[in-house]
């Protein structure tokens, strides 16, 4: 079977003439876990909802193996965005119970795994008779996780899946996700704010900042090539001259800077400066701060 590719080309989204996504081009390959990382209001949920045809784009196309996804039943069988369930919001679905969601999923998600859903409901101690309005934020996240994992959709997107979950439940989720990924080879896109905890899961990360993709890169390579350089300003300047630098901080005569080295590239000199490896969160913060500067 050929490998599936989900692409978006030139996606623009406007809300009342205000552009929230600016000409996004993105390719998602089958069999990877992507981390979608961005600040509040960066456009993560909007992007995922457009990729899954839950929301329309103002312009641009989303294609699955070259076929448009919008209003395309066949393509939509392969994509599921388990967005945050918020029964207090405008959705009017506050009267629905957990079992209503599961029944709807069984009826409308073509690859729905009922047994898996039952097992997850039990694991998370979800009360199927309970109205979603009465569920805590963590419980709603669990329901959202059940829908996502049991959907068995080839491209599964999750929006802040661990928000509201306690540390034990979060660990359970990461374990389940990895198990499912290993078994099925499905593609997952996980949007999260809890970067460090999930960083090991992501094969690739996508940084979204103010409606633009700042970066899409293999996580390991990104971390290997990102260095935090600090020391006396002149020495730091000399070391990073001609390199891709982000987010400089100057304190008196000291300077610190994040450097992204290209493949095979090294610093000009390493004497008199301190080099520190960076974690994903720091890379993200530095890149965002660099952009804002």
């Amino acid at each position: 079977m050929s490998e599936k590719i989900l692409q978006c080309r030139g996606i623009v989204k406007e809300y009342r003439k205000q552009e929230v996504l600016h000409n996004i081009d993105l390719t998602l390959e089958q069999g990877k876990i992507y981390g979608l990382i961005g600040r509040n209001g960066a456009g993560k949920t909007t992007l995922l909802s457009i990729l899954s045809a839950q929301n329309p784009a103002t312009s641009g196309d989303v294609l699955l193996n070259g076929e448009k996804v919008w209003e395309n039943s066949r393509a939509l069988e392969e994509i599921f965005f388990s967005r945050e369930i918020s029964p207090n919001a405008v959705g009017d679905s506050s009267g629905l119970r957990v079992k209503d969601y599961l029944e709807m999923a069984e009826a409308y998600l073509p690859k729905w795994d009922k047994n898996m859903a039952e097992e997850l409901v039990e694991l998370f101690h979800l009360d199927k008779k309970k109205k979603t309005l009465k569920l805590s934020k963590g419980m709603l996240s669990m329901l959202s996780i059940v829908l996502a994992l049991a959907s068995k959709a080839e491209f599964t997107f999750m929006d802040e899946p661990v928000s509201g979950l306690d540390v034990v439940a979060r660990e359970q989720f990461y374990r389940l996700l990895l198990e499912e990924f290993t078994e099925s080879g499905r593609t997952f896109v996980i949007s999260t704010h809890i970067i460090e905890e999930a960083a090991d899961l992501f094969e690739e990360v996508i940084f979204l900042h103010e409606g633009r993709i700042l970066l899409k890169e293999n996580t390991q390579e990104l971390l290997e090539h990102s260095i935090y350089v600090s020391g006396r300003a002149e020495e730091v300047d000399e070391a990073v001259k001609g390199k891709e630098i982000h987010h400089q901080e100057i304190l008196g005569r000291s300077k610190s800077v994040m450097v992204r080295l290209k493949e095979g590239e090294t610093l000009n000199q390493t004497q008199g400066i301190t080099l520190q490896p960076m974690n994903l969160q720091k890379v993200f913060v530095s890149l965002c701060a660099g952009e804002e500067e």
Partner: protein
Amino acid sequence: MKRGKRILKVVWENVWVGSGMVFLLCIAQFFRLSQWSLESVKEIAGSMFAGGLVIVSAATLMLMVYSRYSVYEPLKIFMGYTRKKSFEDMQFAKLLSALFIALISAAAVTFGRWPSVKTEDLTMVFWGFVLMMLVQGAMELLTILYLKTRKQWIVLAAIVVACAGIGGFVGYNVMAIIDAEDIIEIQMSFLFLQENPLLWLLVFIVVYHLMEYFSWKLLKNLEIRI
């Protein structure tokens, strides 16, 4: 569950709500009678059930359309169902619901008035069917407009009218059943339509299709929130 079966499930839910309510009223009326006979059953069916069913169903169908579009259809789209299929399902459900209710009403009229069934009685049932289609179409447009704009007042007035209609009907008839000895007659009166029925029918068809056109225009790019 297959698509057709799911539509029929919605139709069943739509039909039983209104018919169940009126049926209970008729049962209450029957037990209030001093003499129980086939004639009184026929009279209740022809005079009370047939008209009451159409009037109550017009209101309940409005609420059902609101409930489908505000709760279930967004969830279906969330789960990968296309907006087009969702809209088509709703059209079938609306048509079949109104049709089944009209058929039940027509059967009740025929049974109640047998053997002297008048054409006017069945014509009234037909106009009842038209009324049900129109109110469903109007509610569909209002609900989708509400989903698009998130302004609750758009549907609030219609919901209040529908609830008041059901409440008023049930309340009035319960009181009437308690007070009266005779069987209450509920007449559907569409006298103004008798002057020029074809013209009215044409007007209704155009209005209905306009409402459907705008409903689809709004729905086809609707953003989903759950």
